[in-house]
């Protein structure tokens, strides 16, 4: 297929047209990011008048100055890190040993435990019972509550269990000869052999934690505990309707648009920095994700 000279004229036209279309699709995917970045760096009046397209008009960092001087921005940013890393750590603490146990043939009732986990993929009690349960458990408005309540999901467990099952038994035999217990076998034999699967699950967990907002919005009342996404939502909701803020802007070089855009950029930057790692693993993750029981 790589021998270019085999192509007819029609084929060459087709290849170019195809490239053009894919390029356009990629550009239209990229464009909103460029637009938001340009708005965030623009003068407030230009952004409000809608004259920003590709590049900042009246380049200024005023919006960033405003955002970075907000204590709530920093606390919510810190909280997002707590939820992302704390949440992923707790997830791993529960999922990894659990999936390991499920992968062991000698586990009595293995079939039923598997069904017990998988059933939650098909049937879910829904928002309200979950919410009432959180309240009854006294887990509202707490870091721990938000972290523990979303620690597991059946998909990740099954994915990891399948990976553990695919590791030949011969690998653990040497360790067992040396008298290693299950925890040591998991830690010293299985974990190192499962790096791609573990990396995939860690990334799934981190991405969903970083981006999650709905339950954080519902469960957290204390502003000091909200993550970045909830803060961003509040800013979008209040800035765009707040007349007082609008009036106060007359003297400034930022506007509601540039401020929200600046927060969005601040929230995207860590994802972009992390993106090369994400990309390395998610292809594998999708392949691993051929979930079967």
């Amino acid at each position, binding site marked *: *297929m*790589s021998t*270019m000279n*085999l192509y007819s004229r*029609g084929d060459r036209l*087709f*290849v170019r047209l195809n*490239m053009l279309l894919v390029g356009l699709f*990629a550009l239209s*995917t*990229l464009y909103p990011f460029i*637009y*938001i970045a340009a708005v965030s760096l623009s003068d407030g009046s230009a952004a*409000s008048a*809608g*004259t920003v397209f590709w590049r900042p008009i009246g380049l200024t960092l005023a919006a960033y100055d405003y955002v970075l001087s907000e204590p709530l921005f920093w606390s919510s940013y810190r909280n997002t890190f707590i939820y992302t890393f704390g949440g992923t750590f707790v997830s791993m603490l*529960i999922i990894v*040993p*659990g999936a390991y*146990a*499920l992968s062991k043939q000698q*586990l*009595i009732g293995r079939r039923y*435990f598997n069904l017990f*986990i*998988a059933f*939650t993929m*098909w*049937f*879910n009690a*829904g*928002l*309200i*019972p979950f919410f*009432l349960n959180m309240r009854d*458990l006294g887990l509202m408005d707490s870091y721990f509550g938000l972290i*523990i*309540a979303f*620690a*597991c999901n059946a998909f990740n467990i099954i994915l990891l269990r399948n990976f553990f099952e695919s590791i030949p038994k011969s690998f653990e035999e040497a360790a067992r000869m040396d008298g290693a217990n*299950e925890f040591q076998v998991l830690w010293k034999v299985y974990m190192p052999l499962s790096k791609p699967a573990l990396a995939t699950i860690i990334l799934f967990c981190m991405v969903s934690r970083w*981006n999650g*907002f709905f339950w954080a919005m519902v469960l957290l009342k204390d502003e000091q505990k909200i993550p970045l*996404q*909830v803060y*961003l*939502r509040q800013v*979008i909701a209040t800035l*765009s309707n707040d007349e007082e803020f609008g009036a106060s802007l007359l003297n400034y070089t930022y*506007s509601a*648009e540039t401020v*929200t*855009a600046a927060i*969005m950029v601040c*929230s995207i930057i860590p*994802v972009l920095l992390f*993106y090369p790692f994400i990309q390395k693993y998610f292809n594998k993750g*999708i392949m691993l994700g051929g*979930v*079967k029981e």
Partner: protein
Amino acid sequence: MVDENISDTSIASKAEARAAGETAATEGRFVRLMDHFRREWQIYVMLLPMIIWFVVFLYKPMYGLQVAFKDYSIFRGVADSPWIGFEHFQTLIDSDQFYRALRNTFLISFYSLCIGFPVPILLAMMFNEITHHLFKRTAQTIVYLPHFISTVIIAGIVITAFSPSAGIVNQILGWFGVEPIYFLIKPEYFRPIFIGSGIWQEAGFSSIVFLAAIAGVNPSLYESAVIDGASRWQMMWKITLPSILPTIIIMLIIRIGNLLEVGFELIILLYQPATFETADVINTFIYRQGIQGAQYDLAAAAGLFNAVVAFVLVISANTISRRLSNTSLW
């Protein structure tokens, strides 16, 4: 007579022996079980936190679903609130709002299925035709990116871009002499905007599955087609597409199984009372009635309805997929 006696005693002794054997076997099984736990207790310890987690956070709410049949009061709690049978379901059936939410859920799902489902397939087929590797990798990197972006940011981008004064969409329309439109308060624009942003966010990432399927197509098919003088356009439609048809069917079944799963988080961020007419889906209805309006029992009833329909859809989708392709989803 004698013979009978003999046979009687022999039967009795046999029964005795069997009983004795059974006790021994039960004891043996019990001993073996204890022995098993003594040897293998560690894997049960490893399993325990996960099982507890599932009980506390997923199965206990299922028990809590009974509020759907109760007159729930916060002070009495889930267990002690009085039963009222199907009253909440009756209220839902009689309510225009619930009917509207149901209709919107299916319509939004159906439209995004019809419009959104073919896009990643086409995209994967088009990626496959690109021979320039750097271009291909760059384009893929870009189109996968929105999948990793938070819903709040997507909403922020939509709100900014469609704003009547500052938004780029109205600016461009202005060049053609169109008066600024406040898109987000017009019911007729909600679904196109919602479905469009869904495609923008997920089409690229969803194409990975189809690209993987294309990678598995036997290369000799293309080789013999080239010898027969087929053009790339012909190969794309006559070899690539039919070869990935099983994957397409499975993905379609999964999508139909998840028909009720509309991205309600984005809807919550984008809708307003003015657009409820076309935007309000079951989950946003539950959120408004239950969490915002504290009508927990009624909202739980709507949720139960939703969960049961979703369960039936998923199970039928899996059964169909097993029949069709011998590959069940779990």
